[in-house]
C-alpha cells in the first residue's frame, strides 16, 4: 500500500508490511506521529514505537502494546488499526482530541518482532521470544513472565521448553528490557495497556500475588465502564478483574511490574474468542475486534486524562 488509506486493515500482514505502514503513517502525519526505535530484538530486528504527540515536553503519556505473544495475530493487526484511527480521529472526535491535546500516546505494534517473523516463516503457533538458552535445545522465553514482578514465582515455568518459561533472570529478554528502559527513562507514563488474545478479558494487577492493588476499586470501576463500552458495539461479552482472581496465578507479568512502578492505570486485554478459531481468528474479524477494543481504550484514556495523579 502506498498510503494508509489504501492499506488493507482486514487482512493479516507480515512484519515488513507493518513496518512499511509505520513509515507511511509518519510521512502522512509528520506533525502528529513519529517513529522511535527503543531497541533491537535478540535476532537484531529494530523494535519500533509510534509516538503520537501534539506538542509539549514529556507530557503524561499512555502506553499501548500489541503482539508481545507473537501468535496472537489479531492484536498486532488491531495495533495497526489503532494507529490509523488515532490519526483519523484527532481533530474530528472532540473527546479523543482532548486526550491527545493533553497526553502523548506511545503505541508498540510488534512487541516481539522475532517471534512474529517466526510465525510467518516457520511456526504460526509460536508464542515466545526467539532467544537461545544455554544448556537447552529449546528456544525462547515467555515475554509476559520475564518482568521483575514476582519473577520466577508460581504461574511461570523454569523449564526452557515450556510455553511459560520465565527466562534466566528478570528482563533477560531484550524485548522486555527495551520497554523497561523506555518506561524508566520517560518517567511520566500514566497508563500502560498490554494487549493479548484470546479470552475476552480486561485484567488489572496482580497476577503474581493474591494481595489486591491499592487502587483496586478504581481499577475495577474503570474496567466495568470500559467493558460496557466494548460490549455496546457488537455485544461481545467480556469479563474483568485482577489476573489472579479472573484467570490464574501468573508471575513476572507486564502490568504487575508497571503497576509496581507507580503506573496506576495498568491493564491487560485478552481480545476476542469466538469459540471456534482460537488464535486463528479469521481476518474478517480484525476490524470489528479493533473497533470494539478502541471503545474500551477510549474509556481508559479518558479516565486517565480526567484523573491526573
Amino acid at each position: 500500500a502506498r498510503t494508509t488509506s489504501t492499506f488493507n486493515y482486514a487482512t493479516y500482514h507480515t512484519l515488513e508490511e507493518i513496518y512499511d505502514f509505520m513509515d507511511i503513517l509518519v510521512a502522512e502525519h509528520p506533525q502528529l506521529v513519529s517513529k522511535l526505535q527503543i531497541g533491537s530484538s535478540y535476532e537484531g530486528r529494530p523494535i519500533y514505537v509510534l509516538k503520537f504527540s501534539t506538542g509539549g515536553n514529556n507530557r503524561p503519556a499512555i502506553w499501548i502494546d500489541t503482539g508481545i505473544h507473537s501468535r496472537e495475530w489479531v492484536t498486532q493487526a488491531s495495533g495497526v488499526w489503532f494507529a490509523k484511527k488515532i490519526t483519523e480521529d484527532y481533530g474530528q472526535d472532540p473527546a479523543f482530541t482532548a486526550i491527545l491535546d493533553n497526553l502523548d500516546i506511545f503505541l508498540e505494534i510488534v512487541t516481539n518482532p522475532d517471534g512474529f517473523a517466526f510465525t510467518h516463516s516457520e511456526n504460526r503457533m509460536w508464542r515466545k521470544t526467539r532467544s537461545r538458552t544455554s544448556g537447552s535445545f529449546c528456544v525462547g522465553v515467555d515475554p509476559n513472565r520475564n518482568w521483575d514482578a514476582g519473577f520466577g514465582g508460581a504461574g511461570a515455568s523454569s523449564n526452557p521448553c515450556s510455553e511459560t518459561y520465565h527466562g534466566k533472570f528478570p528482563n533477560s529478554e531484550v524485548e522486555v528490557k527495551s520497554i523497561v528502559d523506555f518506561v524508566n527513562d520517560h518517567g511520566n507514563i500514566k497508563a500502560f495497556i498490554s494487549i493479548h488474545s484470546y479470552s475476552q478479558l480486561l485484567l488489572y494487577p496482580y497476577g503474581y500475588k493474591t494481595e489486591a492493588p491499592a487502587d483496586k476499586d478504581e481499577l475495577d470501576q474503570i474496567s466495568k465502564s470500559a467493558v460496557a463500552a466494548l460490549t455496546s458495539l457488537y455485544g461481545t461479552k467480556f469479563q474483568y478483574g485482577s489476573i489472579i482472581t479472573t484467570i490464574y496465578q501468573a508471575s513476572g507479568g507486564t502490568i504487575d511490574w508497571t503497576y509496581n512502578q507507580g503506573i496506576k492505570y495498568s491493564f491487560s486485554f485478552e481480545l476476542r474468542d469466538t469459540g471456534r478459531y482460537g488464535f486463528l481468528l479469521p481476518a474478517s474479524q480484525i476490524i470489528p475486534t479493533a473497533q470494539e477494543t478502541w471503545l474500551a481504550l477510549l474509556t481508559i484514556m479518558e479516565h486517565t486524562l480526567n484523573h491526573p495523579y
Partner: protein
Amino acid sequence: SCSSMRHQVLRISVDDEAQVQKVKELEDLEHLQLDFWRGPARPGFPIDVRVPFPSIQAVKVFLEAHGIRYTIMIEDVQLLLDEEQEQMFASQGR
C-alpha cells in the same frame, strides 16, 4: 506448515477444581506435546488445547475416563492455517 496436519484443538469444559487439576496433569505429560491455547484456570473457564495427531486418542481417552467434557473446536489446524495463508496471498494480490 505440514507439522500441523490433523492437529486438533479441543475445548475442554471443567466443572470443578478437581477437573481443573486433572487437566493440569495432562499439561505435565510432555511426551504428548500439548499446546495449551487457553490454560487451565478455574471451573467454568474453557480450556483450549492443541493436540498433535499421535496424541489425540490418548488425550480423549484420558478426558473421557475422568468424565471431563470436551468438544472439537478445530478439526484440523492445518486446514485453517492454509485458509489463512490463502486469504493473505489473495489480499496481497489485490
